[in-house]
């Protein structure tokens, strides 16, 4: 066995960081979808394209001279949030309670967005560089930006939790999702709650797109690679937005990274999918359908 004890410890730390990072990544790309689906029962097939738009917003802002952190953390969520708001007002609001129709409409929207972005920005790959340097752990170099992604994800989850549990608006939102008739009888318009929720979900998706922009080569069709993973993570999590998201992302991130490390990336990808099948077979209502019931 080549390498000494110290090097193996270094490798273990690097692997651990990588595993945490891929869990964070799954949480990040799924959060917006979890809010929109978990609270409103709308399957947004344009979720990946929302991320893609967030990425483009970031790149445009950076190229226009905006500070990269402002571009990622403020411009991208705002841009996608407003886009989401527009779409909600123009299309989605007519389709609440019609799962199938929202799927068709958002599928159409995803094609529309790909076409529009191609029209505006062309189809060549674009991107920006990560703003954070790599750093060494023992004999290994680690991507510093990955740690930034982890931190952002943690802050984001805490913020969602704080809003849902600690604020008046969070209470109204949860109430409306559970019994919209009661909420409206109490004087809260479900229409407005849905609108704001969709805005929030879109903004989170935009945030994910913005934060990922420096890590990927962006093309108008980039969004398609995220939708399936996000969808699987959200559904496997089950009804509770935060607990479900965290538990399923942890499981899938762990499984896929361990197989990627020990065999190869292809097996890693398949392992994630097989884990999802087994999980749903054993827990047909998702993880939080059985465990952590009633949590958020």
């Amino acid at each position, binding site marked *: 066995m080549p*390498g000494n004890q110290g090097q193996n410890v270094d*490798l273990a730390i*690097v*692997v651990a*960081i*990588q595993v945490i*990072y*891929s869990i964070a*990544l799954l949480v990040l790309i799924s959060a917006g979808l979890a809010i929109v689906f978990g609270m409103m029962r709308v399957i947004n097939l344009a979720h990946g394209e929302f991320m893609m738009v967030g990425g483009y917003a970031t790149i445009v802002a950076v190229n226009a001279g905006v500070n990269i952190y402002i571009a990622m953390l403020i411009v991208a969520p705002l841009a996608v949030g407003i886009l989401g708001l527009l779409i909600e007002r123009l299309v989605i609001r007519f389709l609440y309670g019609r799962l199938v129709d929202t799927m068709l409409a958002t599928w159409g929207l995803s094609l529309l967005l790909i*076409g529009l972005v*191609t029209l505006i920005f*062309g*189809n*060549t*790959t*674009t*991107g920006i*560089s*990560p703003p*954070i*340097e*790599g*750093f*060494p752990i023992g*004999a*290994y*170099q*680690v*991507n*510093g*930006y*990955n740690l930034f992604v982890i931190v952002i994800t943690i802050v984001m989850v805490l913020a969602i939790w704080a809003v849902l549990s600690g604020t008046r608006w969070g209470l109204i939102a949860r109430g409306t999702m559970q019994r919209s008739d009661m909420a409206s009888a109490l004087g809260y318009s479900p229409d407005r709650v849905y609108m704001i929720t969709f805005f929030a979900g879109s903004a989170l998706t935009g945030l994910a797109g913005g934060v990922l922009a*420096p*890590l*990927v*080569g*962006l*093309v108008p*069709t*980039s969004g*398609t*690679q995220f939708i399936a993973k996000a969808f699987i993570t959200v559904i496997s999590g089950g009804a509770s937005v935060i607990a479900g998201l965290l538990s399923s992302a942890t499981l899938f991130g762990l499984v896929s*990274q361990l197989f*990627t*490390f020990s065999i*190869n*990336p*292809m097996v*890693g*990808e398949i392992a994630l999918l097989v884990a999802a099948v087994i999980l749903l077979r054993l827990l047909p209502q998702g993880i939080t359908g059985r465990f952590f019931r009633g949590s958020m």
Partner: protein
Amino acid sequence: MTISRRTFLSTGSALTLGALAAPSIIGKALAAEKIKLGSLLDTSGLFDAYGKPMDMALRLAVDQINAGGGLAGREVDIVAYDTQSDMALYTQYAQQLVRKDKVDVVHGGILSASREAIRPTLHKSKTLYFYNVLYEGGVCDRNIVVDGVTPAQQVEVLMPAAVKKWGKKIYILAADYNYGQITARWMKKYAEEAGGEIVSTDFFPLDVSDFGSTIAKIQSAAPDMIVSALVGGAHLSFYRQWAAAGMKSKIPMASTTLGVGNEHKVLTPEEGDGILVAYNYSPELQTPANEAFLKAWADKYGDTSLIHEIAVSHYQGIQLWAQAVRNAGSIDYMKMIEAIEGGLAIDGPAGKVSIDPKTHHAVLDVHLMEFSGQKLKVIESFSQRQPVDTQAVCDLAANPDDNQQYEIKI
């Protein structure tokens, strides 16, 4: 003179009929004059980053041909369909081109799967087919002309140069599909011939965009260099993440694919500089043919930044076909085949391209290049490389009826 009502009517109707028919007869005469060039490219959908510049190159080439008086005294007309990155549409439009439009030649197809989807249709109907994209090699069919670079042509230049420059231990990263798998095998062969050694080979599905664990794995293996055949937007993330981890200054890199989609303009100089590649074309080539090409492109489209290897390859394919028509003096099928096999050559933007009569593949110049300030700086040029991979399996002079894609044993 009395004209009976009957004769009056009949002459009248004959006249009207004549008047109606005349434009269509003229139209037909003109149409018969024109040579029809069918084009099948993905100008929307997943692969449009390759298809759109190819479409522009096609239109530029045909404009130039027509401005120069056409071919064999006839103008060239384009019949183009957007295949929308959908394999089923390739088959449909190929049928349409052959049966309804009755085109004289088809240029197009991007992915190997799309080429194999339309090749049988074109072969059966004896419609000449030019496939102008770099690919894994091995197609053996007298009806097709391939003018893209094949792996052996690139790799036999790239690997010895890389081994000489950086050392013996090589880590290969490749896209997990046919092109990547075959290219990886050629890399191994030429690396070993040059005295190198492959420490590991990793394949990645095309949609993988997180390379963190791979970067750690590479560091454990501590190779002298990385050679990559990664493909597409998702895989571009690797170069970003590699540079972001601070690895770029530690382990150098060569690639057979980076730059084909103009990636050198996407990566910053800090991320890209120093990466070694080998292609047929670089916009930096200082030849009269290339300067004329760049100027013509700029005049037609303004922006030359979209030009990439495959677009030029497509442009040269059309030039080759036009030259074949000139040599044959007509578009008669057998005369065209004879022209193709009779020392067909052009002087394109990327240098001289000639067709090897035994394989219908291109003999062309390969340039060893380095990324430098978002440009492809030519280090060394290797003139007239033979398609040795396809030559190993295909001999159309001996088996003119051969019609398949060989898997080349290495």
